[in-house]
C-alpha cells in the first residue's frame, strides 16, 4: 500500500529501477545526501567518516530501491536504512577495535564519543557548543530535534521514523529545545 509518498519520489525511483539512468540516480543522491550526511554525523560525530558512510549508504539505497514497498515515505525508509547502516558500522568498528587490542595490533580509528566540531563547524564557539549540546541529548530527543529543526519534517513522519507516537515526538521536541537553550545560555552574549 502506497502511503504518504511524494509523486516525484515515485517517478524518480521508477526511472532508476527500470532504466538505471544516471540522471535518476543523481537526482536521488542530490535530494537525500545532506539529509543522510547530517544524520550520520549526529551518530558518528566525525566529518570524514560521515562522508564515507554517507556514500556507502547512498550506494546501498540505490541498490535496494527495488525492495522498497512504499508502505512509508521514501524519506522514512532512507532514514531507517541510514540509521541501521551507521549503527551497524559503529558496532563493527568497535568490535574490530576490541580484536585489535587483543591482538596487540595497531588501533583502528574509532569515532570519539565527543563531537569533532573543529572539523565541521569552524565559524564560532556557539556552533561548537551547539553541536556538543546536541550530541549530549538522549537519542530520541536529539533525532526529533534534528528532523524537525534541520529538515522540517512533520511530526507524524518523525513519529514513524523513530517508532514513537506523535504526542511523544512533540514532547521530545520540547524537551530537546529546552535543554539546548539551557546548555547554550552562556553563549547568549556572543
Amino acid at each position: 500500500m502506497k502511503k504518504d509518498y511524494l509523486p516525484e519520489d515515485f517517478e524518480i525511483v521508477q526511472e532508476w529501477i527500470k532504466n538505471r539512468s544516471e540522471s535518476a540516480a543523481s537526482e536521488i543522491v542530490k535530494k537525500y545526501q545532506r539529509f543522510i550526511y547530517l544524520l550520520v554525523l549526529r551518530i558518528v560525530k566525525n566529518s570524514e567518516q560521515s562522508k564515507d558512510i554517507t556514500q556507502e549508504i547512498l550506494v546501498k539505497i540505490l541498490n535496494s530501491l527495488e525492495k522498497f514497498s512504499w508502505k512509508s515515505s521514501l524519506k522514512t525508509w532512507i532514514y531507517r536504512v541510514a540509521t541501521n547502516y551507521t549503527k551497524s558500522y559503529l558496532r563493527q568498528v568497535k568490535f574490530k577495535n576490541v580484536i585489535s587490542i587483543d591482538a596487540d595490533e595497531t588501533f583502528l580509528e574509532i569515532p570519539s564519543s565527543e563531537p569533532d566540531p573543529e572539523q565541521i563547524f569552524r565559524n564560532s564557539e556557539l556552533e561548537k557548543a551547539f553541536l556538543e549540546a546536541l550530541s549530549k541529548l538522549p537519542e530520541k530527543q536529539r533525532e526529533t530535534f534534528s528532523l524537525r529543526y534541520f529538515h522540517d519534517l512533520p511530526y507524524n513522519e518523525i513519529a514513524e521514523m523513530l517508532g514513537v507516537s506523535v504526542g511523544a515526538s512533540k514532547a521530545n521536541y520540547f524537551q530537546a529545545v529546552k535543554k539546548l537553550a539551557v546548555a547554550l545560555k552562556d553563549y547568549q552574549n556572543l
Partner: protein
Amino acid sequence: MENNVQYSRKEMEERLPDYVFDRLGDKERNKFEQSLPNYPDLIKEVSDVRTVFTKVRKIDFNKIAEAETRGMTERVLSRLHTQNRTQTTYNYARTTTRRYLIPALAAIVLIAFATQFIVWNISKEENMKNNQIVEKIFDIQAPKVLELSQKDIATLDKSVAQCSAPILLENELPEWNNSDELADLIDDIYSEYLTSFTNESNTQQVEYVVSTINYGNNYFNDLNNLDEENLQNILNEVDNAEFIF
C-alpha cells in the same frame, strides 16, 4: 468559538518550539499567545529559547552539509559503475560456473558413485559366494528333522542301552570354554553309531544327525554328580516318556 478555548499546559509545551521557530499556523499561534499569560514559566521559557536560537538559527546547517557532501554524486555514481563491472565479472564467472563447472562436478560425482556401486556389487557377489560356501559347510551341520516311528524309538532305546560309545567324564575332558566345540566332539563320538542306527531303520534316509542340545559344562557337572539310583530313575522316566513327533 473553538478559538477561544485555551490550550492546556501540555498543549502549550507541545507547541512552544514551533511557536518560537515560527512554524505555527495563524490560528494556532493566536491561540498560543492567548493562552501564554496563564503560564508565566512558559513565558520565560519562550524568551530564553528565542534568545538562544536567534543566534543558532544564523548557522546555516544545510550550507555546511552541502559543503561536506560536495562531489558525492560523482563518487556514488563511480561506485555504482565499479560495482556493475564487478557484478558483470561475477555474472560471467557464475555463467561459466553454471555452464562447465557444475556439469563437470556432477559427472565426477556420478562416476565416483558408479565406481563405488560396481565395486560394491563385485564385493557383494564375492560375499555371496563366500556365504554360499559357508552355508554349504554349515548345511552339513544343520539339524535335520528325524521322523521316528514308535518302532524306531524302541530300537533307539535299545541301541542306546547297548551303546558302547565312550562315556565322557568331566575330569577326562580338557577345559572346554566353548560349548560348541564340546558339542562337535560329542557329535563326532556318536555320529557313527547314530548313522548306523538310522541306516538300519525303516524311516526316511538321514544323511547326518547332530544334536541341538547345548552341551554346557553345568549339564555334565549335574550328570557326574548324580548317584546311580537317581540316574536309573531318570532313565526309567525317559523310557516311560511318550514321544510325540
